[in-house]
């Protein structure tokens, strides 16, 4: 059974159509790379999955439940890292990691200590004084600390230095090896190429390509240079031409 299954998802804000019939399937135990240009609908899709936004039409199944109706039950089984992490100014990173872990209900001191060490975070600093990368680390640690089935990560590694990027990718792989599912929205295509098993490309509120990394590999090799980035840019070009 797929961890996430979406059929014909539509969402509009007033007259603006943000999602125009999204179809997407995230297999259980995989790392799914969710890519697309700015404003394509990645964050909107994710917010529907989290029950923050109400869909206008379509079918959405998350861990076998309805993300709007069963949100409390489902949120116990997932952890989320937003793209623009805003934290409580007068709380320290350590306090926030503890608080969010307790609220989610799955949390262990050992995992907390391990991840704080791996991400090299000073947990005694007030969030106001953290840099963007450090705020991102707080959110990432709080997500990895919880023992959940699904991680939803919206551009989680922006602001991380190359060393931390490596740690982050390692953590993702470990999560998959432990049987967890990851939905990773990202602009860093080298990261997607390195860790993802499945890829979905969204543009203007529609999925324009979906498939496993294995399938894409042959396509990637036909590009010059043979990278996911080149393939990705080609998709855009083709789609834009089709639109015109």
């Amino acid at each position, binding site marked *: 059974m797929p961890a996430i299954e979406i059929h014909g998802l539509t969402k509009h804000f007033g007259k603006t159509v943000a999602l125009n019939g999204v179809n997407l399937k995230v297999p259980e135990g995989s790392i799914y790379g969710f890519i697309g240009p700015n404003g394509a609908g990645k964050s909107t899709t994710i917010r529907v999955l989290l029950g923050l936004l109400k869909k206008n039409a379509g079918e959405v199944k998350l861990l076998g439940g309805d993300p709007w109706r069963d949100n409390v039950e489902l*949120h116990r089984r997932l952890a*989320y890292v937003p793209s623009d992490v*805003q934290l409580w100014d007068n709380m320290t990173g*350590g306090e926030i990691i503890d608080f969010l872990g*307790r609220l989610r209900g799955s949390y262990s001191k050992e995992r907390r200590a391990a991840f704080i060490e791996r991400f090299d975070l000073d947990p005694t600093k007030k969030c106001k004084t953290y840099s963007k990368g450090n705020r991102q680390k707080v959110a990432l640690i709080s997500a990895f600390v919880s023992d959940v089935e699904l991680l*939803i990560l919206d551009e989680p590694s922006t602001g991380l230095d190359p060393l931390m990027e490596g740690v982050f990718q390692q953590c993702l792989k470990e999560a998959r090896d432990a049987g967890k599912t990851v939905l990773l929205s990202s602009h860093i295509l080298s990261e997607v190429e390195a860790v993802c098993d499945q890829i979905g490309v969204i543009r203007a509120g529609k999925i324009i390509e979906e498939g496993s990394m294995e399938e894409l590999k042959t396509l990637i090799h036909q590009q010059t240079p043979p990278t996911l980035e080149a393939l990705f840019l080609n998709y855009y070009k083709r789609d834009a031409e089709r639109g015109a």
Partner: protein
Amino acid sequence: MKQYFHGTLSLMGLYLRQNRIFTFVWLLLPGLWVTINTVSSLVLFPTQEALAEMGVSLIDPLTEAMHGPLLDVSVAGFVTWRTKVFLVLLGGIFSIVYMIRHTRLAEEQGKRELLGSNVTGSLAPLAAALVNMVIINALSAILAVLAMAALGLGFVGSLAHCLGFFAASCVVGILAGLVAQFFVSARAARGMSFGLFGLLFCLHILWNVSGRHNPLAYLNPMDWPLLINPFAEERFHLLLIPLALGATLAALSLHLMAWRDVSGGLVPQRRGRAFAKPGLRSLSALAWRRQKGLFLSWLCFYAVLSFMLGWASYLMVSAVSSAEALSELIARLGGMDRAFLTLFLYVFGLLISVYVMMSAGILREEEAAKGEIVLSMPVRRERLVLSHMVYIFGGSAAIMLMSGFCVGLGAVIGTGDDGALTRLFFKMAGMIPALWAIGGIALLLFGALPRWMTGISYGLLTLFVLMEIFWEQQQIPEVLYALSPFSWITPLKAVQPAAAPAVLCVAAVLLAGAGIALFQHRDAAV
């Protein structure tokens, strides 16, 4: 020296381009207010006899507490006397909001960093905000002078009046710019500025009530429009005081700005706990973290203020009013000192409704800024609202009760009237349902129009206060006035409906319930 201020002119232009509606209202409101007052005075007092009669009726301790003595019995004298307090409050509030926005708030949002990395001097952001604030105040004063002169009130007196509130507004704004240097958060800086402004206002009232002239009044901006004596042998040389005071405070704030780091305060940030306290595990605990600063500062502020008010009421015990219009009210409220306290407690009730809106504003802020994190946790949406409702409803009630208790305590000590404690405590308690109705309105807006909530809620509060003023002048019907929660508790009504608390509580429950239900079914507005 010059390089510190490089780019000030460009920044002034940039600031003026922002928040144009805010600036527009700030520019026009003072002129509009004196115009409305002048026209209505001309209609109310068409003859010299009518004016003289009014002059007698205004020698009244209650009115003098607010406005000070009437200096000149004429339409011009009356208008300047009636409008000055409001004009200073208006100019001061706008100046504070403006200064904090372009200093501490801009810094908090990282705008100053962006500007500072460009070719601007390190003091330019503060200097530009200061100069703009003074210019806008000056323009609004000029418009008010022109309006008054055009209505035939006499140029020199009008000039003195407007210079008075201009100087006061500017110095309050400069003070806010100074306060902004001390606090790392814009909220704290704004709160402190308003607190200081409120303190100046209370001192002004206290000195008016005591009837003696206090030499310290020369240092209080609230008193300048009175001390400059508009239309009664104007004393323009008094303006040297605001000039010197303003220059000193501005120089001090620039000096501190140059001294400290960008986004730093004067007090360095301390390290915090590496582990959360065991109690920090629920939304209620989080709400306490978010709300406690606002709640405790309001609680303490009103405790002290109420005690001072209660104690000062002894000054009114032997005061006699000669105003016929008020005599019935005073008799009904049980004497001048009781009337004084009743009216002021009512004003406290109106002011504490601002706390209700601010507290509800924190809930909205939690949704807007942290909604993605909080609402993706296994929590029900209504739990988030309930955790903050404790402060919106319970917190406001606690502040009211504390205020009632302290005013009573002060009155017992000041006047020796033993019954004052219970009487005043229950008087304050009786007003709580009206604040709850206001809280209900805030929650309904939170559910229905989250992105517009802050603007509309403060707009509604202003509207309710204006309705009160118009109702007093019998310009709006009773039915319309009944829409304001305050109409159910105002001491100006001879008979308060017995059902008032029940009606207000039911309204609060319905409004809050509707707000929560709407929140449960709408998109999260992050």
